[in-house]
C-alpha cells in the first residue's frame, strides 16, 4: 500500500493556475524523483502535501486514509517533513536552535535543556562531518554561514524531526559534489528504514543516481510516472518539454565584432576569484556552471551592487568603477534579475510605472509626460510581444513570463550598450523564451553586448557565442565553437571542486 497518494489536485493563485489535476504516489522504501521545468507545479504540489498551502480541489491520502492538513504543524505531526527550497531557517538564531526549532529537548520543569540541545545538535552535525566546514558548530549563528552550509543545516533540521515522508525540494542546489554525496547517503539510510522520499532536483544526473521512480509534471499536470530503469534522460526531457527537442542549430543572425565592449582583469570579491574575460561588441557571452558559483555575483558586481575588491573593469577602453545602478546606467549598462519578484517588478504598481521607471531615472526629467513616454516604450513592448489588458493594470496580473518581459522592456527603453542578464528565463514558458532569444539576437546584431547567466544549460549552450564555466568563483573553462556541448559544460562545472580546472575535451554529447 502506498504511504502517500495525492490525486486530482488543483490550485489557483489569482488568475494563475498552478496545479491542474496533479497526481503523485509514494511507496515505502522509495526515493521518488519529481521533475519538470520551472513553473510546472512541483513545488506547489509539495507545499500542499506539507500543509503550508491549501488545495482548491483534490484528495490526499496517508496510509490509505484521507487526510487534510490545516497547516504545517498538522502535516509535521502526521510525519511529513519538508526541505524548503527557500529554506526555513531563522538567521539570527543558532544552528542548534534552528535544527531543533519546536522540538527542543526538555529538562526539569518543562524548560529547554540547553546541554541536551547542544549535544543532540553536535550529534546531528557529525552526520555531515567533513563536508560542513570547521566553523559550523551548535552555537554558530545561521546568518554567518554560507549558502551551502545553510542548506546542510536545513537538511539536518528536516531529519531531526524523524519524518516518515520527506520532501526534498532542490536540496542540493548550492552543494558541491562531496556534500551532495553525504546527503544522498542519509537519504539512502531513510529508504532502508522504510520511509519514502520525494526528491525534486534540476540535475538529471542526480535523478538517475538516486531515484527509484520518477514523475514528470508539466503545466500543473502529471504527465509521466515510471521506474527509473524503464526510462531515459531524453524521454524525461521530452515529457517535460512536451514536444520534440528543437535542434541545437538555431536561427542566428548576429555576428560578434572584434572590438571589445567590456573587459575584466583579475576581478576579485567575496565570491569571485581572479575572473578575467573580454566581452566583444555584439556578442552573447554565457556564464555557466553550477548554480551559485559566482555567475550572479559577477553580474551584480559589474552593475555596482556588490563590491569589487581586486581587479579592474574597462568599458570601451575606459575604466569603470561601478558604484551603483545609477552610475552603471550612465555608462550604458543594464541589469535584469531573474528573481523578478524580489528584484524586478513592482507588483502592485501599474505596468506603465514599471516600464518607465529606468527611463525616468535616466532622462532626469521631473515631470511624467504620459503620452510621450507611452510613445517611447511602445516599440519595445511590441518587439517583446508583451501582451496586457491596459497599461494601468497592476503588473501582478501578468504571467511570470510577461512580468519578466516588462522588466526587460524597462531596460531596453534606455538603449543600453551592455546588457547583464541574470538568469532571465527562470520559470518562464517556452514561447516567451523564444521571444526573448529572438530579441537578444536582434540586439546583438545592433551592436549590444550581452552577458547571459542561465541555469538552463541547454539554453545557454544554444544561445551563447561563448560560454565561461564557473566553479567556486573562478572561470575554469571557456567553451566556444564546437566545444559548446553539455558534456564539456558538465565536465568543467563539476571539475574537482575548489581544485584545478578540468581538462575540456571536445567529445560529442
Amino acid at each position, binding site marked *: 500500500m502506498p504511504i502517500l497518494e495525492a490525486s486530482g489536485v488543483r490550485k489557483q493563485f489569482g488568475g494563475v493556475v498552478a496545479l491542474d489535476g496533479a497526481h503523485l504516489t509514494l511507496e515505502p522504501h522509495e526515493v521518488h524523483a519529481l521533475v519538470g521545468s520551472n513553473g510546472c507545479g512541483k513545488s506547489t504540489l509539495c507545499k500542499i502535501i*506539507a500543509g*503550508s498551502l491549501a488545495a482548491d480541489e483534490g484528495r490526499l491520502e496517508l496510509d490509505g486514509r484521507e487526510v487534510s492538513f490545516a*497547516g*504545517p*504543524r498538522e502535516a*509535521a505531526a502526521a510525519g511529513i517533513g*519538508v526541505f*524548503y527550497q527557500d*529554506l*526555513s*531557517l*531563522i*538567521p*539570527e*538564531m543558532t544552528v542548534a*536552535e534552528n535544527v531543533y*526549532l*519546536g522540538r*527542543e529537548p*526538555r529538562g526539569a520543569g*518543562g*524548560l*529547554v535543556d*540547553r546541554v541536551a540541545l547542544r549535544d543532540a545538535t553536535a550529534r546531528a552535525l557529525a552526520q555531515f562531518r567533513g563536508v560542513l566546514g570547521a566553523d559550523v558548530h551548535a552555537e554558530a*549563528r545561521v*546568518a554567518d554561514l554560507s549558502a551551502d552550509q545553510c542548506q546542510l543545516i536545513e537538511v539536518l*533540521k528536516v531529519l531531526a524531526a524523524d519524518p516518515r515522508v520527506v520532501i526534498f525540494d532542490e536540496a542540493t542546489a548550492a552543494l558541491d559534489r562531496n556534500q551532495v554525496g553525504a546527503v544522498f547517503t542519509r537519504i539512502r539510510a531513510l529508504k532502508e528504514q522504510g520511509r519514502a522520499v520525494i526528491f525534486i532536483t534540476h540535475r538529471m544526473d542526480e535523478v538517475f543516481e538516486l531515484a527509484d521512480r520518477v514523475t514528470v509534471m508539466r503545466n500543473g499536470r502529471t504527465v509521466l510516472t515510471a521506474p527509473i530503469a524503464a526510462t531515459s534522460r531524453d524521454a524525461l526531457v521530452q515529457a517535460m518539454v512536451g514536444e520534440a527537442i528543437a535542434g541545437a542549430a538555431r536561427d542566428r543572425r548576429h555576428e560578434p565584432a572584434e572590438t571589445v565592449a567590456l573587459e575584466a582583469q583579475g576581478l576579485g570579491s567575496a565570491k569571485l576569484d581572479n575572473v578575467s574575460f573580454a566581452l566583444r561588441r555584439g556578442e552573447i557571452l554565457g556564464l555557466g556552471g553550477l548554480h551559485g558559483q559566482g555567475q550572479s555575483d559577477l553580474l551584480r558586481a559589474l552593475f555596482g551592487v556588490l563590491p569589487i575588491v581586486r581587479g579592474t573593469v574597462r568599458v570601451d577602453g575606459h575604466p569603470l568603477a561601478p558604484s551603483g545602478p545609477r552610475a552603471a546606467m550612465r555608462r550604458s549598462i543594464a541589469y535584469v534579475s531573474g528573481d523578478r519578484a524580489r528584484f524586478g517588478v513592482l507588483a502592485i504598481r501599474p505596468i506603465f510605472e514599471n516600464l518607465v521607471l529606468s527611463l525616468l531615472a535616466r532622462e532626469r526629467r521631473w515631470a511624467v509626460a504620459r503620452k510621450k513616454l507611452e510613445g517611447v516604450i511602445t516599440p519595445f513592448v511590441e518587439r517583446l510581444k508583451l501582451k496586457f489588458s491596459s497599461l494601468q493594470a497592476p503588473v501582478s496580473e501578468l504571467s511570470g513570463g510577461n512580468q519578466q518581459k516588462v522588466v526587460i522592456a524597462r531596460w531596453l527603453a534606455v538603449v543600453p550598450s551592455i546588457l547583464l542578464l541574470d538568469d532571465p528565463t527562470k520559470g518562464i514558458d517556452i514561447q516567451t523564451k523564444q521571444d526573448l532569444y529572438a530579441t537578444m539576437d536582434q540586439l546583438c546584431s545592433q551592436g549590444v553586448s550581452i552577458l547571459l547567466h542561465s541555469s538552463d544549460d541547454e539554453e545557454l549552450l544554444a544561445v551563447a557565442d561563448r560560454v565561461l564555466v564557473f566553479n567556486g568563483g573562478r572561470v575554469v573553462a571557456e567553451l566556444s565553437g564546437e566545444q559548446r556541448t553539455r558534456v564539456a559544460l558538465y565536465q568543467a562545472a563539476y571539475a574537482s571542486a575548489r581544485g584545478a580546472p578540468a581538462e575540456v575535451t571536445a567529445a560529442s554529447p
Partner: protein
Amino acid sequence: MNLALSTRRRPYLLALAVFLLLCVINTILQPSFLRFGVAASNVAAFLPMALVAIGQTYVVLASDIDLSAGTIVSLVNVVVVSIIDGMGGSGVSIALGFAVGLALGIAAGLFNGLCVAVLRFQPIVATFASGIVFAGIALWILPEAGKQVPPVVYEAYSGALLGVPTVVLILLAVIGFAQFVARSPFYYALRATGGNMQAAYQSGVPVARVRIGAYTISGLFSALAGLALVGETASGDPLIGGALTLSSVTAVVLGGTALKGCIGGVAGSILGAFILGLINNVIFFAQLPFEWQGLIQGLIILAALAGGVVMARGKNG
C-alpha cells in the same frame, strides 16, 4: 572574541557600559547616589518604567509592538485604586484590587493579541486604537486624579523586607521570572516568530499563539507597573501611564533589542529603563538651567538611540 561578536551574543553589553558610565557620572554629581536610601528610592522611581519595558520586550522580540502599554498602566492604576477605596480600604479590598488589576492587564493583553494575531490588524495601528479605548475607560472610571489607598500600601512599597527594599525584591523576582521564561520553549518560539515569521510558521511554530502570548505578558507587566505606581503615589491618576508607552519603546531599543525582532532581551530593556532614569537624574543634578533640560535629554536620547541601532547592526550592515 571581538567586540562585535560579544555584542551579538549579549546584546545588552553596550547598555551595560552606558549604565555604568551614567552611574559614575551620577555619583560625581550627586555623591549620595550610592547610599542605600538614595539607591532604593531611585529603583522605586525607575521600577514602573522598567516593568513596562520588560513587557514591551516580549512583544518586540516577536517583531510586533505594543503602543497601548502605557494606557494599560493607567487603567489598572485607576481600577485598583477605585476598588480599594470603594471597599473601604480593608485588607480584603487590597488583595481583591490587586488581583483584579492583574487580571485586567492580562485581559487587555489578550485583546491586543487577538486583534494582531487572529484578526491580523497591523500592530502599530491596532495597539494605538486599543490604547485609546483603554485610556478612555481609565478616564471614565476616574475622571480626575484622586482617591486614596491605605498607608499600608505605600509603606510596604517603600519599605523593606529583611533589610532588602521591597522594590528591589520586586525587581529581583521579575528578573527571576524573565530568566525562567528565557529557558522556556515559548521563548524559542517567540524569537523564531520575530526572526522570520514565515519560516517559523513553516517549521510548525504556533505563530499566532506565540504572538498572543507575548501581548498577554506585556499586559501583565503593564498591570504590574500600574500596581507599582499605586504603591508609589498612593492614589490613582488616569493619565499616569501617558508617557510610559513611548518611553518603554525607547528603553527597549536602548537595551539592544531590535525592533525587527529576534535579537535582544529583557536584561537590556531593564538597563535601558534605568539609563533613561539616570539621564534624568544627571541632567537634574548637573544643575543645568531648567529650560535646557528637556532639550539636552532629548539630544542624549536621540544619540543613544542612534548609537544603539548602529552598534547592534555591526557587521551585518
